[in-house]
């Protein structure tokens, strides 16, 4: 058995079904060995998207997403995808080919110091020097990626190591690292403290972040909110923790969130942050948030607690375990008046839009679309105005809402939607992007066609980089700089080049029928919605 065979065997042991990637000489031994395996390989059209596709798959399955690319430019191209997964805490194992061990450090063809380059974007990285180390390293990599605060792990394998003979292959059953033992269970004393504050609080609120979804704790959180009548708001990454229409859910917070959600958070006397980083987009002034309230911060990563805001009660551990512990506690709390107040805000503080009837109103369109989508569908929003309209208007029922709230990488939606569709072909998967973000990933239409991945794509077309244009509208008084997208391709012709069904919606008049037809069959469709170029999210 060769090193490359061992690498494939490790992936099989981990139950990997798909590897997204792009070959090159330095990773060829691996791609040769994988031919004998049942693992499917998906040839993505640019390496960055291999990591995004793996991210989409990981988020839907809860398993580690895997990508494999070659050395040098292949490895450097994948960095943005890795950094995106790192910011969003998505478990990935990224394998990179590397030049021959003996040539390391001599700047030969397609050599890049990738472990050095990704150091600040990975949870951990390995440069494999001995083929016999492959089983241990892969076992550790998968464990590190998908435990504690999840994130990407990179394994760099020189070509001679892939070609070396492995003397004995034994996949370890356990990981034993003296430096890595993430805290899962919450501290009992801290849990009691939180419960005590909860039973005293008049205006408690939970702010749920992406960590709740990553720890698969939606069920527990919903049960807890229901049982103790604690209202819930979410960050962008936390959308989907509660069904949008759940009576205890009060929307997304942050500078792009719902005004009523922010007001609810500000007026609370007990704020329980769970699986959220308290980053600038969710909480613009972290210092103020603790002024008039008790802050409980629950996170699996101890370094997040106290990083942006000093909590009254820190609680380190996995959200699922901690909320389950809360559910075990016997206490009562009474805040019906608070719920009445919040429901009043929710009913009266919605954003009032004045849509231009000559175009599609993206807000109304997204509401109609999500109502028509299947209950367990996956909705992937890209980055830009489309993302904010999606966050504010998409109605999550029993499905998932995916977007990159941490890194905000344009072009994420199409590859991530492909990963999500491959994770579960039975699910309806819709990617919503703008004409800017679409053009960052449109090469993947070929991948969708080649591997028959029927993702549905909506392009909200306004011929602008809308989010930046909006910023320039407010900050630079309409002095637009480098945001005009004229020159973009005719999407109808483009769809036909890729044998894809194409639809176009000009106004809201035919929205209902168009959406129905768009969703009707399990096939790839590109729906272009013409939206007002001057439309604003705020």
């Amino acid at each position, binding site marked *: 058995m060769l090193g490359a065979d061992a690498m494939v065997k490790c992936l099989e042991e981990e139950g990997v079904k798909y590897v997204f990637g792009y070959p090159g000489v330095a990773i060829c031994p691996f791609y040769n060995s994988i031919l004998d395996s049942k693992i499917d390989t998906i040839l993505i059209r640019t390496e960055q998207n291999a990591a995004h596709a793996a991210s989409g798959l990981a988020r839907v399955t809860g398993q580690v997403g895997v990508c494999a690319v070659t050395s040098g430019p292949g490895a450097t191209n994948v960095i943005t995808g890795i950094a995106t997964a790192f910011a969003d805490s998505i478990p990935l194992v990224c394998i990179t080919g590397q030049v021959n061990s003996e040539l390391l450090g001599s700047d030969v063809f397609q050599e890049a110091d990738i*472990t050095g380059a990704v*150091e600040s974007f990975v949870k951990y990285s390995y440069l494999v020097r001995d083929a016999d180390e492959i089983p241990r390293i892969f076992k550790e990599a998968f464990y590190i990626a998908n435990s504690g605060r999840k994130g990407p792990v990179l394994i760099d394998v020189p070509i001679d190591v892939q070609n070396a003979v492995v003397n004995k292959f034994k996949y370890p059953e356990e990981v034993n690292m003296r430096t890595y033992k993430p805290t899962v269970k919450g501290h009992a004393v801290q849990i009691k403290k939180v419960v005590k504050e909860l039973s005293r609080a008049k205006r408690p609120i939970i702010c749920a972040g992406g960590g709740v979804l990553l720890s698969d704790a939606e069920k527990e959180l919903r049960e807890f909110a229901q049982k103790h009548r604690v209202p819930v708001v979410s960050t962008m990454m936390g959308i989907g923790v509660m069904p949008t229409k759940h009576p205890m859910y009060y929307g997304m917070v942050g500078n792009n969130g719902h005004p009523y959600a922010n007001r609810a958070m500000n007026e609370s006397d007990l704020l329980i942050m769970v699986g959220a980083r308290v980053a600038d987009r969710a909480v613009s002034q972290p210092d103020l948030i603790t002024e008039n309230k008790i802050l409980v911060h629950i996170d699996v990563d*101890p370094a997040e607690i106290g*990083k942006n805001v000093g909590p009254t009660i820190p609680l380190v551990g996995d959200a699922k375990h901690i909320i389950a512990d809360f559910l075990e506690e016997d206490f009562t709390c009474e805040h019906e008046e608070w719920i009445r107040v919040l429901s009043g805000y929710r009913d009266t503080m919605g954003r009032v839009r004045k849509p231009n009837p000559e175009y599609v109103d993206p807000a109304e369109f997204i509401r109609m679309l999500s109502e028509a989508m299947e209950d367990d569908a996956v909705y992937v929003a890209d980055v830009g105005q489309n993302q904010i309209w999606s966050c504010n208007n998409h109605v999550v029922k029993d499905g998932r809402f995916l977007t990159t709230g941490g890194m905000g990488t344009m072009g994420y939606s199409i590859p991530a939607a492909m990963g999500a569709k491959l994770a579960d072909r039975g699910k309806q998967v819709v990617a919503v992007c703008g004409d800017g973000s679409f053009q960052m990933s449109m090469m993947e239409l070929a991948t969708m066609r080649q591997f028959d991945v029927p993702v549905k794509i909506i392009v909200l077309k306004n011929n602008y980089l809308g989010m930046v244009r909006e910023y320039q509208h407010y900050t630079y008084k309409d002095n637009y700089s480098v945001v005009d997208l004229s020159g973009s391709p005719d999407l109808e012709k483009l769809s036909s080049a890729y044998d894809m069904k194409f639809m176009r919606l000009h106004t809201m008049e035919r929205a209902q029928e168009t959406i129905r037809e768009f969703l009707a069959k399990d096939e790839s469709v590109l729906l272009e919605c013409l939206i007002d170029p001057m439309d604003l999210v705020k």
Partner: protein
Amino acid sequence: MKKIYSVLVENRSGVLCKVAGLFSRRCFNIDSLAVGETDDPTTSCMTIVSSGDQRTIEQIEKQLNKKLDVIKVKTFDETASVSRELMLMKVKYNKGNRRDIMETCEIMKAQIVDMSKKTMIIQICDVPERIQLFIGMMQSISIVEVARTGTLALQKCLETDVP
């Protein structure tokens, strides 16, 4: 606020780079850094002296702990530690100042460890403030070059230490 971090790490290539990178990426200061193998050849001990406000000090410890090559982090004040620094200093001397130099060395408990007809190397091992004081004392003499280890420190012995 000054703090000393005694960081036990895996003795592997690249670990120093990862730890130093963490400090630069998160804009933490490094006043001094000293690394060496411990009694166990698989581990190294890094002694890092850093300064910052309360939140920074806490973050440094947490971020260090988050690194997967870090086994253990101990954070302590200078007053709670025994710290030493070793310095080698090469100076030019002449007949006129040779005696002065030797006297200063004697007072400061420094040793002359090498010499030629024109230059000598002085070794001093002391707490960082006294090293600084020694440099000050020698400033009037022509210093050729200086090499310092940076602070090495261990937490003071406590009754609770004993296993």
